[in-house]
């Protein structure tokens, strides 16, 4: 049984087929890359998986269970967490509260306040933000805001973590740190789907890659296969 499985997932916005008939799966322990040109539908696919949108038509299954149309907060509690491409941290709250929200609300059994605090502090240490714990989140640098996104997603104790362009806008040092972070998360046993334009990162971290273009899945394979695929090269050069 796959951890997550999509069958013929589609969604239209007006006349635009943002995601169209995409079938995919991801297995426990994998790091799956999701790439494609701007507007390919990658973020929309995340929005579908996290149930911000409901596929029409299409079916999503998590550990064999149909989760299509479930409320987003239930999806989160089920063990699917995500970060946002356009950072959506709670800007006016202190950093620690951002993480505590994930911990207090993102699990079926809500931990006691002290336990949530402890978990949040540990996660902030893990992503390297413990020094700015009490700063309002809006005052963080972009790189740190992205780390915060990761920390609070992890606070919901996910089995599957979806990272949407974690490395976009970061400088080379920060990209290297982010890649390390992704590996460490994988080593914790958390399955990852990551959207990324930074090819170096995708190629070195992911075991398998799916390529979207105009809402459709046009290729799928190992980084090696993708790098050598004619269709993929055409799509990227054609842009």
């Amino acid at each position, binding site marked *: 049984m796959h951890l997550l499985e999509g069958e013929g997932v589609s969604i239209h916005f007006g006349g635009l087929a943002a995601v169209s008939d995409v079938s995919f799966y991801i297995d426990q322990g994998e790091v799956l890359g999701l790439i494609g040109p701007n507007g390919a539908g990658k973020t929309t696919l995340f929005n579908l998986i996290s149930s911000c949108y409901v596929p029409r038509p299409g079916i999503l299954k998590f550990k064999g269970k149909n989760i299509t149309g479930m409320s987003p907060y239930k999806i989160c*509690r089920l063990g699917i967490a*995500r970060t946002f491409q356009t950072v959506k941290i*709670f800007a006016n709250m*202190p950093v620690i509260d951002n993480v505590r929200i994930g911990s207090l*609300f993102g699990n079926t059994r809500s931990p006691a306040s002290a336990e949530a605090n402890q978990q949040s502090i540990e996660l902030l240490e893990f992503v390297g933000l413990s020094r700015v714990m009490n700063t309002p989140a809006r005052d963080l640098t972009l790189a740190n805001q992205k780390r915060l996104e990761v920390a609070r997603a992890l606070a919901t104790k996910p089995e599957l973590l979806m990272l949407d362009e974690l490395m976009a806008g970061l400088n080379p040092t920060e990209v290297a740190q982010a890649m390390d972070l992704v590996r460490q998360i994988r080593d914790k046993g958390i399955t990852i789907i990551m959207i990324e334009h930074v090819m170096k990162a995708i190629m070195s971290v992911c075991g398998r890659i799916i390529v979207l273009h105009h809402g459709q899945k046009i290729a799928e394979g190992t980084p090696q296969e993708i790098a050598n695929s004619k269709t993929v090269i055409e799509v990227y050069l054609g842009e």
Partner: protein
Amino acid sequence: MAKSPSFIGSLKPAGPESLTNLVIIVLALVFFGTFLFYTDIDSIIVFYLFYCFIFIIIGQGWNIVAGYTGQISLGSHAFFGIGAYTTAIIWLRDITHTWYFFDPLVMFLSGLAAAVFAVIIGIPILSRLRGDYFSFATLAAAQVFTVLVLRGGKLTEGAMGLRIPGTLFEDLGIYYWTGLLLAILATAAVFFVTRSRLGLALRAISEDEMSAASHGISVLRYKLIAFAIGAFIIGVGGNLYAYYIFSISPPAVLNLNWLFYPILVCILGGNGTIGGPVIGGFVVGAIVVFSETLIGRVHPMVSGVLIILVMKFLPTGLIGLKAKVFQRH
């Protein structure tokens, strides 16, 4: 290592500001707690304070929804009216077999009725609409409720309204004490909500709903809870007012002033703060009592215009001025 917060809500380090707040709270409690012992009980001041307490109560009821979830409800007059009508109906039909006049059970039931109404209209409204559309829908629901009251037959006596017995009235003492107690309770309720798990969820929702939902917060559930708590508080305000006017009719308790007053109280004092509606309550109380004694009745248009003026010239409310003073240090 930095000190870890022990509260659910975020803790600011205790600075001069929180100490000032504590001093202000204690002084205010001592002042209002002893006020009647050195004032003529039937003076206009006591009457004025009673009005202020009502404004603080309904202000806090609106504050919890608008200030902490960012949803502007335009249905307060319905909750207020429901509180007043529930009081009258329970009393006139002798439903609870208690003493009715300033009866805690009747107060509770008046709030509860408003909260139930809030849940009934809140489920369809909050699950589909947000922002302006939420506002319009609450206004529409409140107006539908007004029509129902006008056509309520024997239950509400239509435009005539209901009269509760005025024979129990002795002096303003009980009005003052109950009003004070309820205003403190309403303010404390908002305080504890903001410091609780619920408050944390509400803040997250007001910052970004999609992000809140993606982190396990049931947006509908928490918005509904806040809406119901707010309605409960405003309903209790309606109950208190019913004891004061005795004649409960649509023009008295369902007029648009009861939609505008809580908004005015909050934005004048400072929306989304604990102390704002308290300050706002005293100022709006002054405006209303002054104009009622001077020109008879306050037209809803006046409160509407005031709201616009305050939003234009004092967007953070009076409490915002205090924050500015503290920032200078």
